């Protein structure tokens, strides 16, 4: 499967959360060298980043984003039938992060909850899985969470990654809409032969205690990832448009994974995408992994006055790349904010809500 068309659902809302600690990259000249910092800021385009420190996790950010979204939508927790957590920044190897969020949100035992281990391409993948679950029947309301804390992957001496990465969590609410005439189009791709291009080699079961502690941090082959991006993403965009029967100007906004401003600008030029249709948010929120697609959506499209057709584009670790062309109606809620209060670590989660079986 490369491309698919799915209908019968709508996006009810998207909420994103960033941590309260905001770093100004230009303040790090003493550590990394003023000229190096200036070059990274001017090329990658990251001036500020929100980072979690050691107090918050992707689960915390996503839980807060989901709480705000449920409240704004007026969705009772008991009404949520599915929870998907897309992350490569889990709280634990086990249990899955989705189960922890499930408890914190007080979701019912009838709610399916599971993780998906994808990074930069994760947002379209998560939407795809959620929409197929809704289309399959049985599910009515799904929360698709995507959160990453890549600032915790980096080695402090590696300024190429340290100055690039920020953290964010997102929650997207989808609901069944059997009568909807709007279809979404998805494209999902993988090239595992490039897995070494962006990797944390140690710390998991292949090498639990690496001899080189640097192997507990992310290693990025920047040039190799750039090769991959300019080879794979332009055809992804062109083929996605063709599959949906659309032209470049039929899409109101192209929401890119905010990888690096230089790379995104190159992609825009190569694909002939107008600047005004490709919002960039990397300057203020950095590269926060796959959730940067959601952050760019909530930060730039909240003031719409009509229904929008959006193309979401994810690409990176895996190597994996993906697209989703979706409609966003005027009733869909978009929220963005700072996660102010780290939850108390000893806070007891609410009891899950038991539901009576359907007659």
């Amino acid at each position, binding site marked *: 499967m490369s491309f698919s068309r799915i209908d019968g659902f709508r996006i009810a809302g998207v909420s994103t959360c960033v941590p309260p600690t905001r770093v100004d990259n230009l303040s790090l000249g003493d550590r990394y060298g003023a000229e190096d910092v200036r*070059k990274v800021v001017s*090329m990658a385009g990251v001036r500020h980043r929100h980072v979690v420190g050691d107090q918050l996790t992707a689960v915390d950010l996503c839980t807060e984003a989901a709480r705000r979204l449920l409240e704004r939508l007026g969705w009772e927790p008991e009404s949520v039938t599915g929870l998907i957590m897309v992350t490569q920044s889990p709280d634990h190897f086990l249990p899955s992060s989705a189960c922890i969020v499930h408890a914190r949100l007080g979701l019912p035992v009838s709610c399916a909850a599971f993780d998906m281990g994808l990074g930069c391409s994760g947002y379209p993948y998560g939407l795809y899985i959620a929409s197929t679950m809704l289309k399959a029947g049985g599910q009515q309301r799904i929360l698709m969470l995507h959160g990453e804390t890549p600032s915790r992957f980096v080695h402090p001496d590696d300024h190429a990654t340290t100055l690039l990465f920020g953290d964010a969590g997102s929650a997207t609410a989808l609901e069944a809409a059997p009568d909807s005439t709007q279809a979404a189009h998805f494209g999902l791709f993988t090239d595992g032969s490039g897995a070494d291009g962006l990797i944390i080699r140690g710390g998991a079961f292949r090498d639990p205690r690496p001899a080189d502690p640097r192997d507990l941090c992310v290693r990025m082959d920047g*040039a190799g990832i*750039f*090769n991959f991006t300019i*080879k794979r993403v332009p055809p992804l965009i062109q083929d996605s448009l063709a599959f949906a029967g659309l032209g470049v100007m039929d899409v109101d906004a192209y929401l890119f994974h905010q990888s690096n401003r230089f790379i995104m600008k190159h992609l825009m030029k*190569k694909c002939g995408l107008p600047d005004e249709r490709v919002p960039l948010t990397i300057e203020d929120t950095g590269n926060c992994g796959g959730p940067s697609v959601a952050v760019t959506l909530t930060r730039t499209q909240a003031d719409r006055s009509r229904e929008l057709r959006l193309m979401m584009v994810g690409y990176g670790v895996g190597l994996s790349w993906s697209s989703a062309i979706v409609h966003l109606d005027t009733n869909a809620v978009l929220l963005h904010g700072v996660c102010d209060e780290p939850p108390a670590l000893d806070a007891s989660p609410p009891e899950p809500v038991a539901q009576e079986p359907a007659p």
Partner: protein
Amino acid sequence: MSDRTLTLAEAMEMMADAFNEPLENLSPDTDRDSVPGWDSMGALMLIAELDERLGLELQADVSREMRKVQHVLDFLAAHGALSA
């Protein structure tokens, strides 16, 4: 192979742009280590310039092996992108 070509002067200008280095500082014999802008970011810029101007794909491992300006010129010539 590229269906577009650069003259030697255009190729040198392209590298001056990519590495943010004055053109007069570059010659075929110039070592990579003597060009401050030919760092990891400069390498990305060169990959982008070759893709944009010539449709050529400079692989990361090939890029890393380039130690002199001449090696970039050799790459262009090998792909039919350097005119006489």
